[in-house]
């Protein structure tokens, strides 16, 4: 009974957060909606006795990943509403229709059994001990490979952060102290010098 109450409350919260994320004009509001969805999912994990992954969900997703998103939103300064005119006609309508069709298709693929079948008693208990036993017993090699993946991602990010400005400075043949505005973007047509700012005005 209590699980039903929690499911309804946080199910509504998760869907509301997801819709906010998709629909909000301000990217900061989008990030907040996604954060609400992720917290609701952490509640669902707890309801399914996934204690460890609930904690990881809150720490990694709602904490680290969303903070990173907010940081980048602030950094690149898109905390202003974007204009919503579409270059393709009927793009948004067809996207909404296709999204609805996708939802209906997945639900139909699951079938009516999803809603009526009696689930088994909860036997899976995702405590830290149980999950780590599974990790280091059966999935040791994939675990190590993900560690390698994280190192590669970190190295790639450092490379992206370091080499992009240097290359541009070399291409423009100006010293590095010359600032971004002086960079004339030689491959850009001179008719529209700052396309983003001009559109938003």
């Amino acid at each position: 009974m209590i699980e039903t109450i929690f499911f309804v409350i946080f199910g509504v919260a998760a869907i509301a957060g997801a819709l906010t994320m998709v629909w909000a004009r301000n990217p900061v509001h989008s990030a907040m909606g996604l954060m609400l969805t992720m917290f609701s999912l952490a509640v669902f994990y707890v309801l399914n006795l996934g204690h460890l992954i609930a904690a990881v969900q809150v720490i990694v997703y709602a904490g680290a990943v969303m903070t990173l998103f907010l940081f980048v939103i602030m950094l690149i300064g898109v905390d202003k509403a974007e204009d919503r005119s579409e270059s393709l006609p009927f793009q948004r309508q067809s996207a909404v229709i296709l999204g609805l069709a996708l939802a209906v298709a997945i639900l139909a693929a699951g079938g009516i059994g999803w809603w009526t079948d009696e689930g088994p008693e909860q036997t899976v208990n995702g405590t830290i001990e149980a999950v780590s036993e599974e990790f280091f017993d059966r999935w040791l090699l994939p675990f190590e490979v993900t560690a390698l993946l994280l190192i590669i991602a970190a190295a790639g990010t450092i490379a992206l952060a370091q080499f992009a400005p240097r290359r541009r400075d070399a291409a423009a043949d100006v010293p590095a102290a010359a600032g971004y505005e002086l960079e004339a973007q030689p491959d850009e047509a001179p008719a529209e010098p700052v396309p983003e700012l001009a559109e938003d005005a």
Partner: protein
Amino acid sequence: MTVEPGWYMGLAAVLFAIGAAGMMTRRNALIMFMSVELMLNAVNLTFVAAGRQLEDLTGQVAVLFVMVVAAAEVVVGLAIIVAVFRRRATASVDELAGLRG
């Protein structure tokens, strides 16, 4: 009336569809990226519900793997977005048509 694992799967399907619709409607690269994250989270919920239904802990292990890969993906993706923004001063994917023939 108890909550069955299938309910979670239905909710996850709805969340996945919302994420896919966001991917198709929005042009801000950051919002599209957040939509991808939403879809990954929906799949995670499916994993957990399936693990409960099948009485197997592997579902939760898969969730942890997906989280690690998603975290790495977020780091690299945001770095790319920032690098593109430094060069072109835009986060809109419509403006990034440099490879158009």
